[in-house]
């Protein structure tokens, strides 16, 4: 028996694995089923977004921004458009601001629905995924009737929108909200308060408050750790200061703050809050108005740099734009929220089981398009 020895096994998870949410590769060192270290390997979906941006005029970058976080294209567009507008010091009409907020929040709901559904898949529950997609489908229908696209919209432009909302959009959105808000209870019954689900996620993969802050974790993942920080409220951009809503923070219900369950539940709460914002924005939407601001034909921001950050469904989305005074950006750096959130994985997923790594990765809600860019 003395000759028997054990050693750690290196396990390659991905890039082709059902639970890595795209082409992420994780190098796991495992001792039996216990994972001793996790090393993410990135770059399988690298599409040179930032280099492309240097060769395109400012408005032309938008379709590329769309393709970064493909589950939240509207929010990306919104962030980029605001970044350029702030650089140029452009004011957009009131109506545009409202429509942008409506779309950004609908997109946030759609994105969180995917997160909710795929997190269910990660822990082995298949049905919530289809429930989530049922509602997401309705949001995509709204987007489709507005701009014809269902995934990559190119709708929010620098200085306005590509075109106005179609007739019937407002009523249809109200109907969607009527349908959607009661469904959240259904999600909670099916998954959130399910005993097995709680066992799998509560007190798993705790992300302490200070670790979250030091790694630059943002968005629902940060709020789940009990940090009450949301750019929409704390650094209000667009017209977010006009609405009455609450920032969703992790709750002390089943486990510690910052566990997988909280990271999941904050997204459920945020969907409710987003629905509230959409409703208020619809109520106050100015009836008439142009959807284009008066902007110069060629956008030439002044020489210098500008950084603008906005709250994406996955966290803080930043655009650092350097201009040399020409019509194309000298440099565009995108601060990807999912990349910073993924960085914390070794810290929180070590010493958990393989199945927990899947759950933790799912709760971080990453989108590879944005991480690799």
């Amino acid at each position, binding site marked *: 028996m003395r000759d028997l020895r054990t050693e750690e*096994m290196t*396990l*390659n998870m991905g890039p082709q*694995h*059902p*639970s890595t949410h795209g082409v992420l590769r994780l190098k796991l060192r495992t001792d039996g*089923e216990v994972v001793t270290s996790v090393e993410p390997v990135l770059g399988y979906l690298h599409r040179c977004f930032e280099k492309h941006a240097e060769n395109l005029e400012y408005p032309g970058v938008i379709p590329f921004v769309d393709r970064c976080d493909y589950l939240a294209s509207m929010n990306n567009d919104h962030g980029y458009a605001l970044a350029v507008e702030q650089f140029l010091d452009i004011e957009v009409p009131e109506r545009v601001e409202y429509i942008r907020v409506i779309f950004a929040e609908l997109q946030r709901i759609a994105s969180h629905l995917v997160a909710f559904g795929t997190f*269910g*898949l*990660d*822990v*082995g*529950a*298949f*049905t919530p995924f*289809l*429930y989530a997609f*049922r509602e997401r489908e309705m949001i995509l229908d709204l987007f489709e009737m507005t701009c014809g696209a269902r995934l990559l919209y190119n709708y929010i432009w620098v200085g306005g929108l590509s075109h106005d909302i179609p007739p019937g959009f407002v009523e249809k959105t109200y109907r969607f909200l009527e349908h959607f808000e009661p469904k959240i209870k259904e999600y909670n019954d*099916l*998954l959130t308060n*399910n005993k*097995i*689900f709680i*066992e*799998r996620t509560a007190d798993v993969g705790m992300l302490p408050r200070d670790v979250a802050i030091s790694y630059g974790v943002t968005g629902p993942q940060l709020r789940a750790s009990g940090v009450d920080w949301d750019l929409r409220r704390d650094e209000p951009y667009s017209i977010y200061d006009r609405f009455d809503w609450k920032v969703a923070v992790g709750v002390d219900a089943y486990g510690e703050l910052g566990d997988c369950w909280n990271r999941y539940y904050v997204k459920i709460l945020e969907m409710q809050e987003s629905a509230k914002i959409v409703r208020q924005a619809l109520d106050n939407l100015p009836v008439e108005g142009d959807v284009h601001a008066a902007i110069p034909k060629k956008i030439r921001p002044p020489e210098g740099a500008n950084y603008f950050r906005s709250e994406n469904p996955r966290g803080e989305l930043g655009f650092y734009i350097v201009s040399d005074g020409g019509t194309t950006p000298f440099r565009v750096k995108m601060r990807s929220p999912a990349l910073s959130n993924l960085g914390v994985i070794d810290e929180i997923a070590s010493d958990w*089981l*393989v*199945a*927990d790594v*899947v759950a933790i990765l799912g709760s971080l809600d990453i989108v590879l398009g944005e991480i690799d860019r």
Partner: protein
Amino acid sequence: MQGLIQFFQHIGLASQFWATVLSTIIYAAAVFGFLAVFALVAVYLERKVSGHMQDRLGPMRVGWHGFLQTVADTLKLLAKEDIIPRNADRVLFILAPVVLFVGTYLVFAALPFGPGIIGADLNIGLFYIIAVSSLVVIGIIMAGYSSNNKWSLYGGMRSAAQIVSYEIPVGLSLLIGVMMTETLNLGVMVQAQETGIAGLGGILGWNFIQNPFAFIAFFVYVVAGTAEANRTPFDLPEAESELVAGAFTEYSGMRWAFFFLAEYANMWIVAVLGAVVFLGGWNSPIPGDIYVPGIVWLFVKAFAIVFVQIWARWTFPRIRVDQLMTTCWKYLTPIAFFNLIGVGFWLMMSPF
């Protein structure tokens, strides 16, 4: 079986030996046919039930309401390329689905389908079934080891731990039925459930309603049986979102289909055993002389249990490997032992 043998002797086959051999082959082929058809129906049922639970229709295109979809899928599997990974242990890799399927198939020798419809009417039928159904684990470990894939290895090891552990609550729960009816012969066990308390018959005669311990034991059995059949929430050897497809990751085409067939056959075994031991087998739930063939009642009961397994699969998340062991050793096994002792006392004290 006996009927078949007599039939052959009747039509002039003098030798008892050859009559037996011939009937065995025919019966085995019939069981295989049944299994294949059952798997088709169960997969169809699974897809339809899950579809309707998930707010969609499930297969609709092939045949009436997609009834032939599973047939089409089977044909696709038959036509698929059979891939053996280069670094796999070829012998074990090829043998694994065979061992797994044989383990499952052997059970059907002693599993009744209705009154008198049984391969070998063993007087230790239940014991035999519990014994041979454990062979399944060897097949899964072989598949996990021989694939030369770390995920498959995990699946194999998980499966070994799981099936060996869950044998205990399953066995103990079935033992309660044995204590109450004082037989290991499944046919006799069903006969004993015809009357029950105060000779009322019908549903009141069935084992699970005879005493509170048997009632609990039935639920312990269904839970542990679901785990034995590797179904969600206990499908850790496959664990699609963690281990890709677990022990079966490297398999394709017909070899994979055999694993699949064995899984559904296992579901059926769990369901039929539950129906026979706890739910009165082929006895009618209503006392009196309503003529419905026994086989119909047995199938209704078995399909009810199959439905519950499908229902659970599409509702629950999967539990974790350590929680799986905790559920078995800290909850199900003690409860099963408690039931066993309880039933013992009940049978001694009870006036019936």
